[in-house]
């Protein structure tokens, strides 16, 4: 159920109270921005701009459809799920663009190679950060639960609501992700243990 404060805030927003809208935005903006950033960051330095746009689109969509919010999940979870859906749209169009760009660059060779995949760009940005490289190497369905669990401290139940999948599936995906990460980070783990 919605907490009382959130319920009041939503009611005021629905009534067109601009102060309430601003309060809602101020309260959730940093979290939504960071959520979008953590999903869209590809090491190119442009993730921040995309995250800003996604955060804003989230508010616009949420405020336009306040009537449809039933309170079956928390307000934060609802906003998170909108953010993630918007991020998925961005990632899809990015993949299309990257594909086109690779095709174009196959035709015309330019001095600088811009055809890095997301994973390669992250490594390029943080050469030594093997952890991030390992996370970005996961596919999207395994990566999102990891980011939501370990960066945004969401519970399995919240992740299930955000991603609209059963809790068991979230747990299973987290387990798969952890297994893959352990394999990829084995060397670092051994080094750390020997120190």
């Amino acid at each position: 159920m919605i907490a009382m404060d959130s319920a009041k805030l939503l009611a005021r927003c629905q009534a067109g109270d601009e102060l309430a809208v601003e309060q809602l935005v101020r309260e959730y903006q940093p979290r939504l921005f960071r959520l979008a950033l953590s999903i869209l960051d590809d090491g190119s330095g442009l993730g921040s701009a995309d995250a800003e746009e996604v955060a804003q689109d989230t508010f616009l969509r949420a405020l336009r459809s306040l009537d449809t919010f039933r309170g079956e999940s928390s307000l934060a979870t609802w906003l998170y799920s909108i953010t993630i859906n918007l991020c998925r749209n961005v990632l899809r169009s990015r993949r299309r663009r990257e594909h086109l760009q690779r095709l174009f660059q196959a035709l015309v060779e330019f001095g600088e190679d811009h055809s890095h995949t997301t994973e390669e760009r992250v490594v390029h940005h943080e050469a030594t950060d093997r952890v991030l490289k390992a996370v970005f190497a996961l596919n999207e369905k395994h990566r999102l639960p990891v980011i939501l669990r370990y960066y945004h401290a969401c519970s399995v139940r919240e992740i299930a609501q955000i991603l609209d999948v059963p809790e068991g599936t979230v747990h299973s995906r987290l387990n798969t992700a952890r297994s893959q990460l352990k394999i990829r980070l084995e060397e670092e783990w051994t080094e750390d243990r020997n120190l």
Partner: protein
Amino acid sequence: MTQITHELARQYLLSRADGLLSDKENLFLKEHLRGCETCRLEEERLDHLHIQLQDSFRERWDAISPPARPLVTSLPAPESQWPRFGRVAINLALFALWIWLYRAVLDYLKIIFSHEEFRTNQFLLAGVLILIYVQFRKQRFQLKVDALPQMYAPGLGLMIGGSAIYLIIERILDINTLSATLFGLATYGFLGLWISPRRWLEGLPAALLLIGVLPFGDHLETFIGYPMRLATAWIVQNGFSILGIHSVGVDTILILESGLAQVDIPCSGVKSLWTGMLFLIAATWLEGRSVNLRWLGIVWLVGGMLFVANVARVAVLVVVDTLAGWGILAELIHVPLGVLAFSGVCGIAVLLVRSQPQLAGIPFADPLNILGGESSVEKKRPVWLAPLLAVLIAGMALLYQPRPQPVAAQAAVQWVFPSELQVHTDSLSPELFAWLTQDGVVFADRWQFNWGAEESSLSGDLMFITSDNWRGQHKPERCFEVQGQKVESVQTVMVAEDFSLRVLRLSRGPLQVSALYWLQTGNRVTDDFATRIWSDLGREKPHWVLVTILLDDVYPPDSASLGALANTVRAVVAEGFGGNELWIK
């Protein structure tokens, strides 16, 4: 206590990591871990992974600040009820109106990007377009073609302001390149109604770069080059005077500049300003640096450095050519000097651009939001904006009035030639006449001539192009090149104290000929197009006659017979003015 298997213990560890373990299961797990080193190692491994992930995520993303101001401050208007194709149709209609408003410029652009004489600009355009395509792919630039226009003050301001100035410029000045520049700026403002403001600001250098490929050469030469050459000559002369050398006059330097030092390469003289500015804009854009007041300061600084580099180049050439008398050495070093100075300034420009903050690292604050209020990266898209824009653009298109052009007449003046200059009218073909008169020529006349005694006679074609509008008179060098002749050399020659003309050596295959030209009004003669154009900026616009003589043979520039022929023709033109300083009778 019930014992659990290793397999179950590991499952419990994973469940505990996800907060799914009950108190009872937790007790079983703790009991198992007490006696099992293998499972404790697994626990340690999981905890380590947990810390690794948290630390790495925080290190990477906590450092990036979220936007400081709220992204949305009021309830958004309901989404447009128009279907997608309806929104696209509205946008297409607005775009069509926009093209109609700028119909005159499009004709000009068609010429620029199709005629052979603008090949450099065409190659530049192709290069810039490829660069823009690649960068926009990289920066994920998107035009929201299916969204209604948004209220974005900087875009709207640039669009309306640029168009208003365009209407005035077209009516009063009629300078095509300036109109095309305003078209470029206003169109980028227009596009800002469909682009995210952040992306719009990031793409601004690309728009400037695209505008920069227009043929600014002649205009730079006229409006900046001429005062710049005067200033350069004055600085160099005063510099030498301070050093005790008083024999070098401004005129000497100007003649040297008009000939040797006016290198026709894009990295020297006044053209370096154009090339340098394009380089600076491209560097800013490719480096992803912000365009702000400090950047404008860098623009001025780089412009100043290019000017100083040119002054230094001219000073060196004056020393080598005029003072030391080593003309051949001056010929040899003038191009390397230009390239060297230009490269040096470009290197400094890159360092200055790199000192600008990177766009990617700046939280977006919409610095151009001049109307204040919401700093949202997404603006409101009120439904009334599209019809308002349609009315506004259509209104401006209806207000458009080009400058009235004088109607040309062939042979409307009875030029009186002396007996020693025998002329036969050589009528202009309708096509040539139309081409010559397209930009406001008043009279156009051509003759074949013979002049002088048999042993030193000269023959060829003589042409007078009379206009009270500088655009009616093209630089003869360009005309000759269009006709397939190569300009081998251009030299300024002083025929009399008040009479300087240009002598050209032209070639077409093995055939070489000489040509002369100058511009003349009732009381003035000049070989400098800049002087002629500047006279149009005064209140009274005098008639100028562009005299071009194409000879049948090649002659030394300082040939006495060329000078005598020029003096005779000058007298004919002066007679045409009949003592009036400004207008032909």
